Structure formats: structure tokens, C-alpha cells
């Protein structure tokens, strides 16, 4: 049993184990795919994918993840860190929203690149903070994919532009599904009677 007595690493390993299930990846992919899909179809029901994404995340955590890897309450240090970052996250959303309203609504630039840069910077700030908040490095990669898809969409315009965002979303979805399958294989569900009599 090779084991390094590094308490910080143990805590981080415990934290990261909650992201091995690929559910965050799948939910994010749904957010990326929805606007792209909507441009290819007039069916308004596809917009509901936005609402389904959080349900997939919450339901998946409850019915797939927790029964397989158990329940944990993290320590005060991680909770404090999350609280501080959540406040920063809220402020960032307010500031970026104000920036979007001012730049796109009031100034209303005619050049496409200015719109792309504004939206890109705002998305980058928010999504980078989400990656930092969750402390999961692969999310930075996803957000680069999202930004790339978004920028290429703006650059190419309709109808070919959305394909880039759909491709980015497709990559994230594929990784998410692969992670989920690996998670299901690695952590089979244990019989409830075993766990009920655990101590």
C-alpha cells in the first residue's frame, strides 16, 4: 500500500474524486451545444437543454455519484475558500454584465472584433473563475474550447459559425461520457444492506 502522508494531497484527492464522474463535463457540454443546436433548428424545445443541464448535474450527483463513492463534508478551509470565491464570482458576473451592457448596448460598436473581444473577455473571466472555484484544471481547457468556439462563431457568422461551438461542445461531451463510463466501471454500486450495517 504505497502511500504518501501528505494531508493536503489527501484532501485534494478526496475533492477531485467528486469530479471523476464526468457530470460537470456533460453539463457544460450541454450549455455549449444548446445555442449551436438552436441555430440549426426552429424547434424552441431544444432551448430546454439549458434547464436540463443543471438537472443532469444535480440528479447525476445524487443517483450516480453519491451511491458509488459515498458522502463527505469538507473541512472549514475548503468551505471558506469556496465562500470567498463565490463572492468574487458574484461580483465578476455583475461587473461583466455591466461591461456587456455598456459596450454592446450603449456604445454598440459596429466592428465584429470589438463585440467578440468584449464577450470573450467576459466569458473568460466568469468561466476561469468557475474552474478556479472548483479547483479542477481540465475545466480551464474546456473554457478555452468554449471561447474558441464562440470567437470562431462570431468570426465566421451564420450559418457556418455555430458548427465551431458545436464541435467544441462535442469534444467536451465525448470526454464527459468517457469519464462517466470509466467512473461507473471503477466504482460499481454496492449492495445497500452492506452499507446499512457498516459500523
Amino acid at each position, binding site marked *: 500500500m504505497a502511500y504518501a502522508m501528505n494531508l493536503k494531497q489527501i*484532501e485534494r*484527492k*478526496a475533492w477531485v474524486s467528486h469530479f471523476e464522474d464526468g457530470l460537470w463535463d456533460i453539463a457544460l457540454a450541454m450549455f455549449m451545444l444548446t445555442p449551436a443546436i438552436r441555430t440549426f433548428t426552429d424547434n424552441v424545445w431544444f432551448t430546454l437543454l439549458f434547464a436540463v443541464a443543471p438537472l443532469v448535474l444535480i440528479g447525476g450527483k445524487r443517483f450516480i455519484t453519491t451511491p458509488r463513492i*459515498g*458522502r463527505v*463534508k469538507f473541512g472549514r478551509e475548503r468551505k471558506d475558500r469556496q465562500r470567498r470565491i463565490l463572492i468574487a464570482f458574484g461580483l465578476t458576473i455583475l461587473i461583466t454584465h455591466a461591461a456587456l451592457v455598456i459596450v454592446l448596448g450603449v456604445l454598440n460598436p459596429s466592428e465584429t472584433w470589438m463585440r467578440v473581444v468584449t464577450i470573450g473577455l467576459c466569458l473568460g473571466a466568469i468561466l476561469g473563475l468557475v474552474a478556479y472555484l472548483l479547483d479542477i484544471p481540465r475545466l480551464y481547457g474546456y473554457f478555452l474550447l468554449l471561447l474558441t468556439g464562440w470567437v470562431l462563431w462570431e468570426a465566421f457568422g451564420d450559418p457556418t459559425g455555430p458548427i465551431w461551438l458545436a464541435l467544441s461542445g462535442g469534444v467536451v461531451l465525448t470526454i464527459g461520457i468517457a469519464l462517466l463510463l470509466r467512473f461507473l466501471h471503477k466504482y460499481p454500486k*454496492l449492495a445497500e444492506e452492506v452499507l446499512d450495517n*457498516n459500523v
Partner: protein
Amino acid sequence: MYEVDDDTLQPVPEIDRLVHEPARLMILAHLYVVESADFLFLMRQTGLTFGNLSSHMSKLEAAGYIDIQKEFVGKKPHTMLQITNAGRVALREYQKRMKQVLDDLPD
């Protein structure tokens, strides 16, 4: 003849054998870094089998190093495990003693 100073041998006998056992050390280390966790979570994180974990848990509970709390998740009862203050002190003390012992090893 090489003389052994009794004081230098002090840390070794003072190592807490209950904590020194690798599986129990792992359990305590995991509980040390979180507020509380359930049995399944510890099983997954430590890689211990059900029986092994259960038996070590009982020893740690008997020593007062961990505390077992019953709570409800929805309508179902659920068992959460938490390290006690005594457990925290024991782990820190163990770390200190081991460091002393290993620091004194010749190169």
C-alpha cells in the same frame, strides 16, 4: 564501546501503535482533512475492503479517536464518521514522533 543515551531512544517507544498501523493511519489522515465522511467514502478513498475498514474503525472508535454520528439523509438514516479531538492530537503527536525518529537516522 558505543554508549546509548536513553533519551535518544525515547520517541520510539512513545509511538502510538494504534495510529502506526498503515490502514488506521490512512483512515485517520482522511478524516483529519475533512469535516466528516461516510463509510463508503472512506472505503473508496483508502482502498480498504469492507471487513478491514470495519474492524479498524471499531478499534479507532474504542480508542476515542473517531466518533460515529447518525443523521438522516432524506428519510433514511445515515452514518457519518468524524475524527475526535483526541484523534487529531494523536495523529499530530504521531507525526511529531515519527519525524523525530526519522530525523535522527544516520545518512
